């Protein structure tokens, strides 16, 4: 039974820089959301929903932050689930505040930015499409006639933010690939290693000395 608690390495990912952006974005959401919720709250019902959702998100984010601080991998599904929770929490707060008239929808932008640099383009596209669809559905049920255009513009911007993240992620991946393709070893490295590229270290040292 305890085995269920031990992550399978094939289903885990290292907490790389993209995930750190997700964690940082979530802290922004938690802190700003909590401050704005507590400042002149609209009603006790809405306030309860906001506090429960935001503090739940804070606890989940603390778990992920702790995993990073301990240099431990995290289940990939947990990361996906946490990002789904971000979008769900923002959507629920938008619903609780009246749908289209709520100003909280701007939190979708940093959330999508973080997702766009942390996951693969296909996953990002899915997140962006689902976020826009959910927000569109919420808004269509609550907007006044004539606001459809504003809604479309907001959805285009959500797609734009996700697209920018994907484009930059692709640029950086290509550059990393180019950098990793250039492996120039120093003499110190050669000395420390028993063999380099299948050659014994003495051969490399000899060639290096001859070259010098």
């Amino acid at each position, binding site marked *: 039974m305890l085995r269920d608690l031990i992550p399978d390495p094939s289903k885990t990912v290292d907490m790389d820089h993209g995930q750190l952006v997700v964690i940082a974005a979530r802290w922004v959401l938690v802190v*700003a959301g909590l401050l704005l919720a507590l400042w002149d709250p609209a009603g006790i019902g809405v306030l309860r929903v906001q506090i429960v959702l935001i503090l739940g998100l804070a606890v989940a984010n603390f778990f992920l932050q702790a995993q990073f601080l301990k240099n431990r991998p995290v289940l990939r599904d947990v990361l996906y689930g946490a990002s789904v929770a971000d979008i769900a929490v923002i959507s629920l707060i938008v619903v609780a505040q009246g749908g289209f008239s709520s100003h909280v929808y701007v939190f979708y932008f940093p959330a999508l930015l973080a997702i766009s640099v942390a996951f693969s383009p296909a996953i990002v596209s899915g997140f962006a499409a689902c976020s826009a669809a959910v927000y569109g559905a919420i808004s269509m049920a609550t907007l006044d006639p004539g606001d459809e255009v504003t809604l479309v513009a907001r959805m285009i911007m959500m797609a*734009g*933010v996700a697209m920018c993240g994907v*484009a*930059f992620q692709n640029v*950086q991946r290509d550059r990393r690939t180019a950098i*990793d393709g250039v*492996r120039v070893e120093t003499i110190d490295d050669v000395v420390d290693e028993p063999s380099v590229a299948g050659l014994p270290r003495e051969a490399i040292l000899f060639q290096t000395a001859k070259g010098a």
Partner: protein
Amino acid sequence: MQNSNNAKREAAEDIFYGQVVINWARWFIVAAGMVLILWTVEEKSQVVMGIVPIVAIMAINFYLHGRLLADRPANPALVGLTSAIDIGVITILVLFWSEQTGLASPFFILYYPVVLAFAFVMPPKVSIPFTVTTVALFAGVCVLAAPEILSSVTTVKALILRSITLAAMGGLAAYYWRTSLRRPSAKTVRSNGNGAQDSAAIA
């Protein structure tokens, strides 16, 4: 000396490879701006007036994206100037366009991709002042358009919410810029100790 040259080269590569993100962001701004202008006005004269700034942004992007496709991307000064023009045009739309100006303007969302793309491409020492200036400009324009917003908690909250998220876009992108590529702490590029590594191969 070698480190200094590498740093300069990396900074140049950031602009060289990254500015496609700014181009894409600008295309989305053009799309959203056209939707907002063409379908929110009733009079022909307003359409003509409104479409001019969008066409200007589009022309800039044709030029910059064309240069990029021809392997002649813009230098940092031009990237900075065109992004500043983007912010200026959006600010004019927020301040003057139609009856909904300032905080009520739907155009403020166009700031988000501009700030994001700029922070992805430029180093934080440039992008963070750009973000701060944009947030301050937006807040100033909202107050200028309708000073009475400061007397309502709801509108002040909305302004703060937008400012925080806009600042977060710039801040998070700058954070990713710092951590994503370099700064290859454990990267495999190593010099031969004599400064003779052919760093041109990286490009």
